[in-house]
């Protein structure tokens, strides 16, 4: 089926262009994460090297070996060789070891343990926010100019601009700390055993409720406004008029003609919003002490745990870039018009 859609030469070019862009983006962020650490004056690697030699009386070779174990590469030889070493390590899944976490846990293990929690929160909350926003937006567009529309739209425009840390702090203090309805921190209670048992699942959902609520409340309003504008512009299209003139039922026109066409462009925005959501995860997971990738990033940043910062930065940016690419591709299959640009 995809083959049929990829028929034309133009289309193939379009896809190749997108793939090249994604690959270059990934290469770029990888280079940033490498050079940030290597080129900073007084960079952590040199500091560690000096510390090992001066304070722990290691021999230079020993110190280099030690650093190699830490970062997966050592600060010797020309920079480009180090960079290639770094890339090779990444491909092998060697992200270095944590400097702070006990027993110098390999960073990859930490990521594998924490990433699922972030994906869990984001996938549920973004889907809910998107769905509510879409429905509300269409509803507002149909009642355009009415009292409900005017009030809701201006409330939405204010909410959509509230930074996550402000909204999250408000919800945390009122719902969790003062009213004690939700747990304050963590991803599940101490008394349950992880696994496919009911108490564990219930505890996980209970702990995830407030972070998800924060994402949803702050996220849906933006979608509602965008969807409202899209719907209004689609309502003016000839094919909607034609469908109505053909005497099709209002409900059918709403869903099949207006709704579908208005949602289409929002798919790309949805992928872009995932990027923002990852940025938001930094705040929300820190706020609710939720052990996901955002929390890990924050912990790494405050403790100057450079291998962790590097790895979290890479994982986050690469997943957003890939999500963008997938959304672009999916969108172009759903709506071939955009490949003609």
């Amino acid at each position, binding site marked *: 089926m995809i083959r049929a859609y990829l028929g034309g030469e133009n289309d193939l070019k379009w896809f190749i262009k997108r793939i090249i*862009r*994604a690959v*270059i*983006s990934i290469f*770029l*962020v990888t280079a*940033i*994460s490498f050079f*940030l*650490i290597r080129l*900073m*004056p*007084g960079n952590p690697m040199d500091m560690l090297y000096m510390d090992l030699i001066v304070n722990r009386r290691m021999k230079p070779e020993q110190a280099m070996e030690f650093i190699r174990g830490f970062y997966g590469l050592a600060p010797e030889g020309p920079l480009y060789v180090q960079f290639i070493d770094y890339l090779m390590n990444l491909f092998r899944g060697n992200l270095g070891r944590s400097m702070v976490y006990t027993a110098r846990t390999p960073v990859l293990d930490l990521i594998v343990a924490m990433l699922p929690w972030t994906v869990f929160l984001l996938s549920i909350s973004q889907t809910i926010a998107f769905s509510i926003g879409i429905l509300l937006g269409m509803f507002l567009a149909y009642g355009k100019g009415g009292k409900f529309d005017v009030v809701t739209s201006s409330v939405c*425009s*204010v909410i959509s*601009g*509230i*930074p*996550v*840390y*402000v909204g999250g*702090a*408000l919800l*945390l*203090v*009122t719902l969790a*700390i*003062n009213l*004690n309805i939700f747990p304050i921190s963590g991803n599940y209670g101490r008394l349950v055993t992880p696994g496919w048992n009911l108490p564990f699942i219930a505890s996980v959902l209970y702990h995830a409720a407030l972070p998800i609520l924060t994402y949803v409340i702050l996220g849906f309003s933006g979608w509602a406004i965008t969807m409202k504008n899209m719907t209004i512009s689609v309502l003016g299209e000839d094919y909607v008029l034609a469908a109505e003139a053909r005497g099709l039922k209002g409900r059918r026109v709403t869903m099949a003609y207006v709704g579908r066409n208005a949602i289409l462009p929002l798919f790309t925005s949805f992928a*872009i919003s995932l*990027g*923002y959501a*990852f*940025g*938001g995860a*930094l*705040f929300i997971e*820190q*706020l609710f002490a939720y052990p996901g990738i955002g929390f890990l*990033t*924050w912990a790494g*940043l*405050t403790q*100057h745990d450079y291998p962790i*910062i590097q790895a979290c*930065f890479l994982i*986050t*940016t690469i997943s*957003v*870039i890939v999500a*963008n690419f997938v959304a672009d591709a999916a969108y172009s299959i759903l709506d071939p018009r955009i490949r003609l640009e």
Partner: protein
Amino acid sequence: MAEIKNAKLLYKSIYSSIKEPLRLIIKDKRGLFGLGVTLGFVFLATIGPLLFPIDLSVDLNKRWRSPSWEYPLGTDRYGRDMLKMVIAGAPGVLSVGATAAFVIISIGVIVGLISGLVGGKVDTALMFITDIALTIPSMVLITVLAVFIGARALDPVTLAFIMSVTAWAGLARGIRAQTLSIKERKFVEAATTLGLGKMHIILRELLPNLMNFVAINYFWSVMGAIMATVGLMFLGLIPFSQVNWGYMLNNAIASSGAGMYSWARYLLLVPVVTIILLQTGFIYLAAGLESVFNPRLRED
């Protein structure tokens, strides 16, 4: 005498160019609100700290005071004046916001203009870079950059540059699209036919027509940069000044620990209301400007 006359003329020309937009903004209730709030914050940030110097000494006898004439917004858990803390936090974030927005606008306009005017391979290359900047999640990049560069020294200007690292991309795309459409208009064609130079066309024909778009985006950019800055302060990643709004938020959450003080809710409310007020002011001012530049949006 001639100088005075010139000054008068200058004043008159500035006045007449501001008068009409100002009238339109003030006529729109939301625009007036936005303008008032924005000017209020600018006032707070510039003169406020001089009028109300902050005293950071800890005085536990004065803590948890409710609002009074002496402490209009009450005191925090160390007995410090909340209003003065809000004022002390204003210059830092506003200067970062204003500078960052300036950098964002400059890069965005230059890239967008070149892309739209030159076209061809230059356009393809610039838009390729722009698209890459758009796909990299900005908040994560900003945070990491701020911490790494901030390990050395972090002044408002450096921070402003960090804030604009990818934020220019959206604007550049917009400017390019606008340039492409304005380029085709009759008055540009007329200027070209008259043999007026390229610089004339860019400065006299294109830029004035892009100004509305730029002005609105300026305020959006200021807001974005301020919110990101406060966010970094909230995470405790950039201290930058002893008292800031992010710190106040954090402090309020810490004070509310173990449900001890219901007063903490109020402590939280002060920075939250400050931030939302500033943000709403900017949104409304931008909306007011939009109606100035786009007559179709006006209600009358």
